[in-house]
């Protein structure tokens, strides 16, 4: 079970996290791994705190639900408040938040890394809708879940027609954002106007 990765992608309905989870899952399939993807279907999928779970493993995956997250992505405050307490191994789970929309509290033991994901999408790509792919870039850079090239190809494969390259660009930007390091962004950009 040592290989089992349980990834939670959370945010508001409409931020594209369910599509992001499908792309992540397909990328893992293309990378020859076993995958199960689940998502919230209730009214929360249309706003508030929606969730998509992806389990990646070398072994076959039996229980399909995320019980012990190893990676958590939070793209808004409501989902941050709701899903941070789901972490069982505090400190071992990689926690990535969009510091544009999440203002904390960032308790030290969680080792939370904040990146201005939505702001970067808005300012550098000119489109907030690609924030989900940018987040995937940051997430994959931080965790190395799937080989980068395979991931890029999977984005092209699944992105809405005509937007493949734009989304790949956002994904690469996520890598750059990760490489520039977290920390200094936390708490600052949260106040930037929407």
């Amino acid at each position, binding site marked *: 079970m040592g290989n089992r990765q349980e990834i939670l992608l959370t945010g508001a309905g409409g931020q594209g996290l369910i599509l992001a989870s499908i792309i992540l*899952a397909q990328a893992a*399939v293309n990378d020859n791994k076993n*995958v199960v993807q*689940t998502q919230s*279907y209730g009214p929360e999928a249309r706003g508030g705190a929606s969730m998509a779970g992806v389990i990646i493993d070398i072994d076959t995956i*039996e*229980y*399909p*639900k995320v019980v012990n997250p190893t990676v958590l992505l939070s793209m808004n405050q409501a989902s941050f408040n709701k899903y941070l307490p789901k972490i069982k191994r505090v400190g071992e789970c990689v926690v990535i938040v969009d510091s544009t929309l999440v203002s904390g509290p960032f308790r030290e033991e969680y080792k939370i890394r904040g990146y201005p994901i939505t702001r970067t999408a808005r300012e550098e790509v000119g489109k907030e809708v690609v924030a989900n792919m940018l987040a995937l870039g940051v997430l994959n850079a931080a965790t190395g879940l799937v080989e980068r090239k395979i991931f890029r190809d999977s984005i092209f494969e699944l992105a809405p027609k005509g937007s493949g390259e734009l989304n790949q660009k956002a994904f690469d930007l996520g890598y750059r954002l990760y490489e520039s390091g977290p920390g200094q962004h936390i708490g600052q950009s949260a106040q930037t106007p929407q």
Partner: protein
Amino acid sequence: MPETKPVLMQGNEACAEGAISAGVRFYAGYPITPSTEVAERMAARLPDIGGVFIQMEDEIASMAAIIGASIGGMRAITATSGPGFSLKQENIGYAIMAEIPCVIVDVQRMGPSTGVPTAPSQGDVMQARWGTHGDHPIIVFSPASVYETYYLTIAAVNLSQKLRQPVILLLDEVIGHMREKVTIPRDSRLMVEKSSDKVPADYKPYDEKGLTPLVPFGFGHYYHVTGLFHDQYGFPTGDPPQVERSLDRVHEKLEKYRDEVVLTNYIGHKEPRVVIVTYGCTVRSARAVVKKAYWNNREPVGLLSLQTLWPFPDKEVREIAKKADVIIVPEMNMGQIVSEVERHVKGEAEVVPLNRYDGEMISPDQISDIMGRWLS
């Protein structure tokens, strides 16, 4: 079978793909969570391959439409969830009586009534068996993975054709909605089991001698179709010996093909002390537990997963009961298949129910807790 690239697919999508692979070219339905993706996929796929997709005014009409399509010579399927499944029951009975092949997919959600539309449940097990009135036979499959959904849909379509019998595919919200890696063979024509088109000039659609293939209505043979008890040509009768013979015959055809219809799978210890008997998504939780307990720790445990729920796998369960001291039956309802297990175990082993009905899956921890209690 040609190698193909593995894909990420939802249970509901796999159901639609399985149906298409098995030659289904007619879908009629009324969308309902959590089954809607079956309809969506069919609507996207069928027009391109010469099929027909109709969104009907309700579930009753959908059921009637697939019966009509089937007797007109097409392989037909419909999909729904609990509330719609209730509505379909009357026409399911008609299809059983008139021996018209069709497949009904019920992606179970939390009930009764509209319940919790997005929450999983396994509450329709007995409805699938006895939802329509009268002493009827029925085939019900319950897959535990996306790939199993694909091949059980194919089996459902082929068996319904072969036995001229409606088959119910009982999915649950978990299996219907989750996406999983699957490899689906490319050449789908391999999957279609042809029924014989050789029939005598004096065609009896309800021949007393046994199984006759269905010649589509209007293709050269005259017969009558009714929900009333009927003679060999389909004309109504109330003659007591004939009524009894007819009912015997529809039951016998299932008994005769019992081993083709009843599918189960056992993993674990050869001489188990504790065995879990379960179906649908609950198999996954149970398998996680049994793999750990048996493969890692060599504990005397096993898992009998039931792909077929009805006709009930009585032989298989009795065999387990001879070896095991305890049979645990986890299900996401207040206890439906457990009484059937008890009925066939006949006291040879202790039967312990494990029920959950709050709209969440039974977790591996819940199963290992109860299993541990019986092992120590």
